[in-house]
């Protein structure tokens, strides 16, 4: 029963195989029959993930689960489930019908990669997980084969990720060279802050920062988000980023804890850059996907405030914020996806007067955006507050000040969307339509999450009980 420790990954692999087999035997004209089973299967996996199970290390410490990583995986799984729900509408389109199961397989395999990354006990596993979480995503980004933008997004993603993983690897090689091992628990003893290690860390940091979209390693983000199919974008912005943040935080808190005094400053600087640049770019966007891309960059900057906290509070908060962020961003992307799939409209001014034709979607969007902006009583408020608290705990009040001022800018552009939906009038508003059941379910989950997670404090407490001693 040792394999139960790896139950998340194994279940996912199992689904992948099932889907692959079904795909092979399914006639071409009935491919979309796979959607419901896939979602149900995945939902089952999600629920199974919550069942308490053994934790521990396997493969000689190369694979480690702790209650913390289990929880992180569960959080990611929830997010992916919502993404699945939201993708149905898009998958049912004629041009996508024949690659439904591919979509699922690719998506799940990236999830597998992330989960291995989270559970990795050495840099090799970590690296493979990282690549597994990236390469299929490039394929997904280019999934809309007949859209030039999608291909461009794929190019940009695969090439940037290749470069970044090259740089990351260079850093890793230097760490290996100075420490002599790749196992985390041994690496930690060898880290002593020598210049070469700092160099190695910076290179490694760049590789991770690419995944999290930290300035100046973020430039791919907006283009890829804009070009990718919208559900892939939401996946990229939420799951991929969330996983990277969580694993990076763990690595910083454990493996690199000896040079915390150094990386805190790295994070400090990049956090400021990220928030500011992200916000400044987001202000001027018209395309909603691109807009949310920059917003998610800014959010990453905020998350770094929690990372810089380097305490239990910081760890808990980062995870908590990722959870909140999943619901907020997926809420926003869900609405954009629904509207984009129905009307093809993705610009902010297309949303003029939306509230008067589609009030529920507008409200969902508004709640999601307000949560992103950190408006109470939505979950985002709590998340941000705790992030700032984590940074303040270290006495970094100036950083907190810059961050809160940045939230003002972010509020500004979130309000621009709200303005379009609620305040503006339009001659040709998006006509009323009824979205499909899956999307609606997804949005309802998001809204419920937004409203509940903050007010209902046990969520935070639940996370908190696992983060003890991680820093």
């Amino acid at each position, binding site marked *: 029963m040792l394999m139960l420790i790896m139950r998340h990954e194994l279940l996912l*692999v199992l689904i*992948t195989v099932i889907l692959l087999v079904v795909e092979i035997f399914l006639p*071409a004209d009935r491919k979309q029959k796979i959607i419901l089973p896939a979602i149900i299967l995945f939902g089952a996996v999600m629920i199974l993930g919550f069942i308490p199970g053994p934790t521990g290390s*396997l*493969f*000689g*410490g*190369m*694979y480690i689960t702790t209650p913390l990583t289990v929880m992180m995986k569960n959080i990611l799984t929830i997010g992916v489930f919502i993404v699945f729900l939201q993708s149905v509408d898009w998958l049912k389109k004629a041009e996508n019908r*024949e*690659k439904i199961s*591919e979509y699922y*397989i*690719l998506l799940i*395999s*990236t999830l*597998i*990669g992330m989960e*291995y990354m989270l559970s990795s006990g050495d840099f*090799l*596993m970590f690296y*493979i*997980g990282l*690549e*597994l979480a990236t*390469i*299929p995503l*490039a*394929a*997904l980004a*280019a*999934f809309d*084969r007949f859209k030039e933008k999608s291909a461009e997004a*794929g190019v940009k993603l695969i090439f940037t990720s290749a470069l970044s993983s090259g740089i990351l690897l260079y850093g890793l090689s*230097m760490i290996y*060279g*100075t420490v*002599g091992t790749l*196992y985390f628990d041994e690496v930690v003893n060898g880290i002593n802050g*020598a*210049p*070469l290690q700092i*160099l190695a860390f910076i290179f490694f940091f760049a590789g991770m920062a690419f995944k999290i979209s930290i300035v100046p390693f973020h430039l791919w983000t907006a283009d890829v988000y804009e070009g990718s199919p919208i559900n892939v974008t939401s996946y990229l912005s939420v799951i991929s980023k969330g996983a990277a943040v969580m694993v990076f935080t763990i690595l910083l808190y454990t493996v690199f804890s000896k040079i915390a005094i150094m990386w805190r400053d790295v994070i400090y600087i990049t956090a400021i850059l990220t928030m500011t640049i992200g916000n400044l770019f987001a202000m001027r966007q018209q395309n909603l996907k691109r807009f949310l891309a920059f917003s998610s960059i800014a959010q990453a900057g905020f998350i770094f405030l929690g990372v810089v906290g380097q305490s239990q509070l910081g760890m808990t908060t980062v995870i908590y914020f990722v959870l909140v962020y999943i619901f907020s961003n997926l809420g926003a992307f869900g609405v954009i996806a629904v509207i984009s799939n129905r009307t093809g409209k993705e610009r902010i001014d297309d949303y003029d007067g939306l509230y008067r034709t589609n009030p529920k979607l507008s409200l969902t969007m508004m709640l999601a955006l307000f949560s992103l902006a950190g408006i109470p009583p939505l979950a985002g408020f709590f998340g941000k507050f705790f992030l700032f608290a984590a940074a303040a705990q270290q006495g970094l009040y100036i950083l907190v000040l810059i961050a809160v001022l940045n939230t003002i800018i972010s509020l500004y552009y979130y309000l621009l969307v709200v303005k379009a939906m609620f305040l503006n009038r339009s001659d040709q508003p998006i006509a009323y339509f009824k979205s499909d059941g899956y999307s609606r379910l997804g949005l309802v989950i998001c809204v419920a999450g937004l409203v509940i997670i903050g007010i209902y404090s046990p969520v935070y407490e639940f996370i908190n009980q696992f983060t003890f001693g991680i820093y």
Partner: protein
Amino acid sequence: MTSNQIMFLLFSAVIVIFSILTVTSRRILRAATYLLFVLVSTAGLYFLLRYNYLAAIQLIVYAGGIVVLIIFSILLTSHISEKLPTASLLKKWPALLVALVGAALCVTVILQHNFPGSVGNTELVSVTDIGNSLINYGKYGYALPFEVISVLLLAAMIGAIVLAKKRKD
């Protein structure tokens, strides 16, 4: 100067020269060929370090696999006679600067670093050991990565197929 040093210098000269040629040659097929030389020389380095198995893999996968893939795609997408356009100077000089500064930085830092004394194990790693390690699930065993990379390859394959396959109609 030992023969090893000479060999190393030879290989590294090839590597450096052909690397530079790879990124500067204006004929794309030639660039690919130069890349092949680089990869082969790298395999030579591995031989030098007594990593025969690795060198073999390098030759098979890299030289044999990836480069061939690259050449195929070159043939698919480019005309052989065509000369690649050169990048603008505005692009070249900053890139050169960055590369030089980066290289200088790394080299300085590396040379300053005080590595632990070298052990210098010259033994050949046996293929058996490698094989055992690959299926070993204890420490320093690589069963798990080996399995996971298969998922990666599968996913990459599916992804590549989905992208590259032609429309049915």
